[in-house]
């Protein structure tokens, strides 16, 4: 004898239009659609990100200079007050040359922090970082030294008279810095190039870095630079 079990309490019969167990499954499509759209947006983003990373010319994050510059020839003064013949002092060395000023609110501190971090990530790479202050009025030697020491004690600080600085920037192929109008407190900004010039041991500048190259990208380039033999042999 067949025994028919009574329907469970609260369950509707098969095919019932008002079956409470069926309705949630049908309406979950909104939730599923939301999830699908969300992941699709993420996926498109990831693909876009990969695309950006692989499209760099020559594989450098910095700008490769097809016609490299010669190591600049200029003389300025160190934070110790000694004359510094840039070409003679850095000859045959991997050198990073950057023009800025200690009161710079953005480009200079970010660039110096980036350089320090990237050099830390490329151990064994002997490099000289030279920071030239284009604001000799405010960047007295002690102030400039204290500023650079916040980033790395090995960073070389240079400055000079306006005429010497103009000559140094010209020799480096860098646009001359411009002092902007002071505000009511007398503070002023200095418009200057944000470019870091990389001069390799063959005494030529093959690469330059505009502001915006990130620490991990710098580190990748420095590790690669370590292995570029033709730039190391003079």
């Amino acid at each position, binding site marked *: 004898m067949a025994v028919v079990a009574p329907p469970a309490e609260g369950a509707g019969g098969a095919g019932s239009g008002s079956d409470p167990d069926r309705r949630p499954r049908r309406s979950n499509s909104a*939730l599923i659609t939301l999830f699908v759209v969300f992941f699709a947006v993420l996926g498109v983003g990831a693909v876009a990100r990969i695309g950006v990373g692989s499209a760099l010319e020559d594989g450098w994050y910095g700008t490769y200079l097809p016609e490299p510059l010669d190591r600049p020839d200029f003389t300025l003064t160190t934070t110790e007050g000694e004359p510094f013949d840039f070409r003679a002092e850095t000859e045959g060395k991997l050198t990073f040359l950057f023009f800025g000023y200690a009161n710079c609110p953005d480009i200079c501190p970010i660039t110096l*922090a980036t350089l320090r971090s990237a050099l830390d*990530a490329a151990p064994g790479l002997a490099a000289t970082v030279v920071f030239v202050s284009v604001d000799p009025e405010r960047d007295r030697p002690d102030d400039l030294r204290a500023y650079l020491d*916040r980033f790395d004690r090995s960073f070389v600080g240079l400055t000079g008279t306006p005429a010497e600085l103009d000559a140094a920037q010209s020799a480096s192929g860098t646009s001359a810095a411009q002092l902007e109008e002071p505000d009511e407190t007398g503070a002023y900004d200095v418009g200057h190039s944000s470019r870091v010039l990389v001069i390799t041991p063959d005494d030529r500048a093959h690469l330059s870095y505009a502001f915006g190259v990130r*620490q991990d990208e710098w580190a990748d380039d420095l590790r690669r630079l370590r292995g570029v033999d033709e730039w190391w042999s003079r």
Partner: protein
Amino acid sequence: MQWWCTASSEPWSWAWTPYPGIWLSVAVVAGLYVRTWRRHRPGRPLTAAERRMPWWFASGVGLLWLVTDWPIGALGAGYLASMHMLQFMVYTLIAAPLVMIGIPSWFLDGARAKRWWPSFATLSKPVVAGITFNVVLLSTHSPFVVDLARANQLGSFAMDVVWLAAGMILWLPLLNPAHELRHPSLAVQALYLFLASGVFPMLPGAFLVFADFPMYATFELSPPVGGLDPAVDQQIAGLIMKVGNIPILWPVLGVLFFRWAMKDEESTPPRPAPEVPIPVTE
């Protein structure tokens, strides 16, 4: 004038900056609350708990305002990863639950018949809510999304809205205004909260702490604030994500555990009294 906090290449300034979009949003949310309260208020006298609800809601919205507007909002949107993380923690672990405690169940009386209600019920399940919250956490802290969203006001606004929504979803199994959708077991609630907001966020937090380089271009290339190095700032952000939930999470877990223990004790049937032999006198 900007209407929402966003990344900026301008050096940070402590000069107050107005963000009218934030004020408008707060006003709209508060206005909607008052309107709904007036429309749906039941005819019976309100309970003491219901009378306190507007204060809970106002506290939550006030806190949202505090961390979205200048200075925290502006710092978090474009200058400091640590402030970005602080915002996220306040949004999801403090403001969102306060807002939810402040919503009476009769706000949702008319919603139960809506087509989206079953989706809402599904979203209230601990597994779904936990996964959703952590997907939002991971995606809105991925460098691609942060750098993209924080670069413009609309993206920054969207990220803040998504954070608030994610925070509310996180708390649905515990504080759902529709009480029938809360998970019935306090032990499961405690375990869920521990896993969803205590354990899983430690993984991305560890990534931030131990990364070799700053992960977010927004914070790495922004003008420095207070001389804070972007790598150190990111480590602080990672620490906030890893352990910043402790002052919120553990007291809540303690309360849940205590309630669960009390409930368990109440539901245990009393032991029968030991039988005392009746002395028989002859």
